[in-house]
């Protein structure tokens, strides 16, 4: 039986821009998370960071630059690229292995110093076939959205309602970058980006630094009265060529299945009380509902119509405002985990949902049309 792992403390900052430099921001969240856990960096078993080299910040080998403020100097450590929830999974597995009792997990993304999101995502394209087409994440998402609407009869209004919900939820989130009360019509009337996606249906480019202290069961009980357990996790990678894939039946189903099996979840709709999912494009939240098993294929539109994923609904999704409100590309997965942690501990302030949250789902994705997914289940 693998060892249990808990999150014992969290810290984060965000927003659109900041006068604070990268080092100061990173240092601040790392120090805060360590202080909250009451543990010094010298006592932390290992450090796993997540940052990207996709020309983010103009620096190659991001770990070389951020090693000092991440508290990692002369500590055992490693770095995950692309997806910060990978770092959470890897940190948890290091503790499960029995080699460490604690791990510091850090996600770093200073969006204001990065090029536009799609300047970076264009670099996911291979140099021969996709790149001459200019394929980037938004173009791939637009193709996926068109297929989603055509195949299931999902309407543009239903997709826009996700943005309505999440940007309204974001009003309670001090770190959210884009927020407000919008109607579906206003969302659809915002600037067209790639047909049929409009600006408010696409996530912005934001800043975000996240730090979490993980601990084994024994250590967690020493460090906090209210550990939040990592009950399950799963990742899955899809084929690269989008023409080779079924864009409506992706690998999220597989990633979720792995996490559910580990956490003993057989009926996600009943056993999960809150979800923080990564929806860089509004319609994807509906598609991810389906692949996470919250509803049947093609039923995502009905779920949003019924309001069950609203903050006051039966299964609140993205009470933080999600990625549409705040999108530090690399660290965004860890911000979802932090929100779930706060909701489970009833520390989410204005964003606290009405229902009791014992089990929460956290999701991250990157790549064209959701090529790669990570699901983590947290519980009280």
């Amino acid at each position, binding site marked *: 039986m693998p060892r249990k792992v808990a999150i014992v403390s969290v810290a984060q900052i965000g927003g659109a821009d900041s006068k604070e430099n990268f080092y100061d921001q990173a240092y601040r969240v790392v120090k805060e998370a360590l202080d909250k856990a009451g543990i010094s960096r010298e006592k932390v078993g290992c450090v796993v960071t997540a940052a990207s080299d996709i020309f983010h910040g103009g620096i190659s080998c991001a770990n*070389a630059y951020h090693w000092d403020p991440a508290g990692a100097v002369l500590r055992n450590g490693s770095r995950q690229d692309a997806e910060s929830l990978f770092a959470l999974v890897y940190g948890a597995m290091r503790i499960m292995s*029995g080699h460490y009792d604690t791990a510091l997990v850090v996600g770093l993304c200073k969006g204001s110093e990065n090029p536009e999101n799609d300047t970076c995502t264009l*670099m996911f394209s291979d140099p021969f076939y996709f790149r001459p087409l200019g394929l980037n994440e938004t173009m791939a998402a637009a193709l996926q959205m068109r297929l989603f609407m055509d195949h299931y009869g999902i309407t543009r209004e239903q997709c826009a309602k996700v943005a309505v919900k999440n940007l309204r939820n974001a009003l309670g989130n001090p770190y959210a970058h884009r927020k407000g009360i919008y109607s579906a019509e206003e969302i659809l009337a915002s600037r067209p980006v790639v047909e049929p996606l409009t600006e408010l249906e696409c996530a912005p480019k934001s800043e975000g630094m996240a730090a979490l202290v993980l601990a084994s069961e024994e250590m967690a009980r020493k460090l906090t009265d209210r550990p939040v357990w990592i009950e399950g996790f799963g990742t899955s990678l899809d084929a690269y060529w989008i023409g080779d894939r079924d864009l409506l039946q992706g690998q999220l189903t597989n990633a979720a299945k792995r996490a559910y099996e580990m956490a003993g979840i057989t009926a996600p709709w009943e056993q999960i009380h809150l979800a923080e999912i990564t929806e860089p494009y509004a319609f994807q939240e509906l598609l991810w509902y389906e692949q996470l098993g919250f509803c049947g294929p093609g039923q995502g539109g009905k779920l949003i119509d019924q309001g069950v994923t609203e903050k006051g609904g039966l299964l609140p999704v993205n009470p933080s405002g999600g990625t549409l409100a705040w999108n530090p590309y690399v660290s965004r997965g860890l911000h979802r985990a932090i929100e779930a942690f706060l909701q489970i501990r009833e520390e989410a302030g204005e964003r606290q949902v009405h229902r009791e949250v014992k089990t929460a789902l956290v999701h991250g994705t990157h790549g064209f049309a959701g090529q790669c997914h990570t699901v983590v289940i947290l519980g009280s």
Partner: protein
Amino acid sequence: MARAVAVVGVGQTHHGRRMDVSYPDLVREAVVRVFEDTGLSPKDVDGVVSGTMPSMMEGVALTHLYFAEAMQAVGKPILKTETCGSTGVSIAHTAFYWVASGMAEVVLAVGHEKMYEGDSQATMTTVLDPFYQRYFLAGAPGVFSMQSQLWATRYKIPQDKIRDAAAFISVTHHQSAFDNPYAHIKMKVTMEDVKNSRIIVYPIRLLDVCPNSDGACAVIFASEKVAKRLGRKVAWVKGVGYRGDEQFFGDSDKVVWQSAIEAAKQAYDQAGIKDPLKELDVAEVYNPFTYQEMIFYECFGFCEFGKAPDLVLRGIFSREGELPVCPSGGVLCTNPIGATGLIRVAEAAMQVTGRAGEHQVPGAKLALAHAMGGIDQFNGVMILGSEL
């Protein structure tokens, strides 16, 4: 008690200037070979760890996406580990912890680089921060030159002795590369050739420096249960260690180099190694520069500080010596950076399982694999042994 983890098989490409294959096909070549070596198939794999150098060197960002098919990773759990030059060993560490955690029985680790399609020194320059260091610490050789001069000055080692020892290392590795079917640079060199080769950054000359290579490496890590079921010799992971220094080059001592010392110490402690020179049978040290290789000998406790050139010239680290280093020809003859650290792990595994062919160190039972990354910033070590 942590779960035991073994390297059960390895696959390498023929490294070199591989204009005959695309980048995905290069990756595929290594992955196909690790399945041939182990008799396992992609359906046996519970997880894949991918890693390489930064996007600027690849020309593609987040390469695990592009190489999903080549790595046979479609539908598989995935992690993407990158720590600059030490990536290869960090990939191996990730696979090790994944199996040790109980979350997988079989993990495939893949590292790769196609350097003839990129510009490695331009990329290395962007590893430095944009405000202070980038303007004067361009590329790798300048940094390694300063490091070797600092070392020579501190221990008052005569320049001609260091020059001879470094040339001796170059001759030894270039000779060994002839015995490694996968090695890139295969050329006969003499001490005089090295000493008369073109200056890159004083005192480093062309034959003191590794090449750019195209290459990939795939290694399968497995649990004790799977390792025993395979019914073949495997290499058990006896110890792992990793440390990184400060980003700013001047903030840490690169001679009595703490990240190298502590990474090795962590791995030695786990493996129960007290006298590495005596207990290790072979070491695959990450040696892109001849001079730096000697600093690693000292930091890894193979000899006292300032004494490595004497031991080198006595042949202690040669193929027939007390502790043969890089019988594969090492990084000096083959350097596809994102794969290089993993090749060290693969070579160490080949040695302790008696499968190193022409460059086998007879009777090797305990081996060290090492990689270094950043601007002299990161060091990772893995110890492999023939016995559980």
